[in-house]
């Protein structure tokens, strides 16, 4: 089976210093891949680069990025290396079709990705609408996705503000998997949670990705989580001399 992501020799720099250098990894379909490393090692930067989001300048100076399960021929970083902000902006535009479909992103505070002015059902309908093949019965599909994350069908009619924090987290996860992505990128979903909630959140994330057949790139700084759940680990080396105390 071809990999979902094939990153080779990723190198990104800011105006002052090299942020990541020579990072290579594969992300396999249907598996949990953990991305770990000390703070300042460029975990978020690497995760964003994995979805063609390059937002520092001059930015990308080396590396290639392929999505073999999508199209093994395309190197998305072609013409972007050393091209600076303009080339990166063009890549962002060109890769728009991938985000929210081939791969989805779940930010650190997952519920911040919810639109406060739309019901959970409306947001799910949009997410499901990004699938290559629309479901026969949208209402039924919304109920099914909600059930997968342990929410009742009634949640569809609610605005995010009417749900508890934990329910919002589940709703956000439902929206991340609803497009049937091949890969979900979860940016430190454990941040700020106590140990019990931490386990509950990542277990749900892994389970839901598995149910939907999606691979998961899990950014984590909790060794116990990585040990328990990850099939593969990408370790970023720490950078000396950088970062504030």
């Amino acid at each position, binding site marked *: 089976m071809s990999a979902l992501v094939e990153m080779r020799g990723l190198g990104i720099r800011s105006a002052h210093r090299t942020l990541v250098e020579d990072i290579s990894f594969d992300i396999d379909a249907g598996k949990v891949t953990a991305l770990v490393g*000390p*703070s*300042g090692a460029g975990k978020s930067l690497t995760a964003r680069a994995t979805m063609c989001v390059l937002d520092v300048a001059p930015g990308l100076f080396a590396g290639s990025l392929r999505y073999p399960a999508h199209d093994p021929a395309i190197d998305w970083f072609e013409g972007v290396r050393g091209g600076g902000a303009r080339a990166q902006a063009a890549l962002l535009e060109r890769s728009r079709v991938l985000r929210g479909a081939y791969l989805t992103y779940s930010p650190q505070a997952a519920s911040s990705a919810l639109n406060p002015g739309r019901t959970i059902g409306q947001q799910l309908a949009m997410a499901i609408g990004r699938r290559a093949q629309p479901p026969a019965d949208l209402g039924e599909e919304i109920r099914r996705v909600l059930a997968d994350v342990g929410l009742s069908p009634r949640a569809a009619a609610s605005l995010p503000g009417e749900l508890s924090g934990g329910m919002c987290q589940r709703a956000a996860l439902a929206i991340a998997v609803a497009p049937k992505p091949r890969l979900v990128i979860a940016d430190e979903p454990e941040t*700020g*949670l*106590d*140990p*019990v*909630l*931490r*386990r*509950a959140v990542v*277990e749900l994330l892994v389970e839901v990705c598995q149910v939907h057949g999606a691979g998961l790139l899990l950014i984590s*700084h909790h060794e*116990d989580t990585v040990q*328990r759940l990850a099939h593969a680990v990408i370790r970023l080396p720490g950078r000396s001399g950088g970062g*504030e*105390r």
Partner: protein
Amino acid sequence: MINRARTDTPVVSLRGLRKQFLVGGALPWSPKRVVNAVDGVDLELREGEVVALVGQSGSGKTTVSRLILGLERPSSGEIWLDGQRWDSLSEAERRARRLPYQYVPQDAMGALDPQQTALEHVMETLTVLGGCAPADAEAKGMAMLRRLGLAERRDALPREMSGGEQRRVTLARVLALEPRLVVADEPTSGLDPDRRGSVLEDLIGNLPPKAACVLVTHDMSEARDWCHRVVVMLAGRVIEEVDLHAARPAHPYARVLFDPWSGPLPRGELASTGCPFRPDCPDAAGVAGGRCAAELPTLRPRGPEGSGAHRVACHAEGPRQAPSADPAQVGAS
């Protein structure tokens, strides 16, 4: 790592502390109900001691920390600070005596004045609260900033500071007053894991030698690494007090909190009679006579007689109070 000498002189004593809140329902007309946020807490903190107060949200740990300093009034029970009854004082009387007892809030940015520099923050505390002359306050304030590695940031405004720097300015303000007691409510929340250690090092490493400190946290590694003793709360009660340098947590709930992968994940349902943890407890079935359902377990010393440092509120602990108890058998009956 914690390396502070303790004496036997208590700084804080809590006796039978209770706090009830009246909370409204989802809608304005839903009936209000009484919540026992803190439900009978006894706790002693001695000079030099750093104690972690841990638990999930809603366990009552933040309420206890606020009660200690008189930021909330208890429904019943007693609070003693340095041998003086604290809860029966009027707010005016407390204000006159408050200086040695300081609070570090969770939200550093919210606690700082956007228009004041790092040094001005510390100086203001020293002059307004500490009664220092301005020249004195500047010297003392600078000395404290220097100790926290902020000397070069003396003129920085809060918005120009990193999260860690903001945190350290709130610490500098409190530590400059040479407190007897510091209660810190999740002082590292929102910081990167690598920066957390340095904030705690700055706080605990710069406490006056005999000061006591309460660290409220839900990060168990902070509790383990930076505190003499850990106090675990569940449903408003203390369910375990343990020195993690000498023993492992024994209460079934404390065990999951310290190692969330060690057993079934609690769903957070609490029983209203008997032991509150019963619905989620893997050990309840092994306790004879249905005691877990019938009787609220109270804190009892565990391990070698007289050490008293390890106390657990769990019926499964009953038969193992003899000094010969095997620590490896915890909770296995």
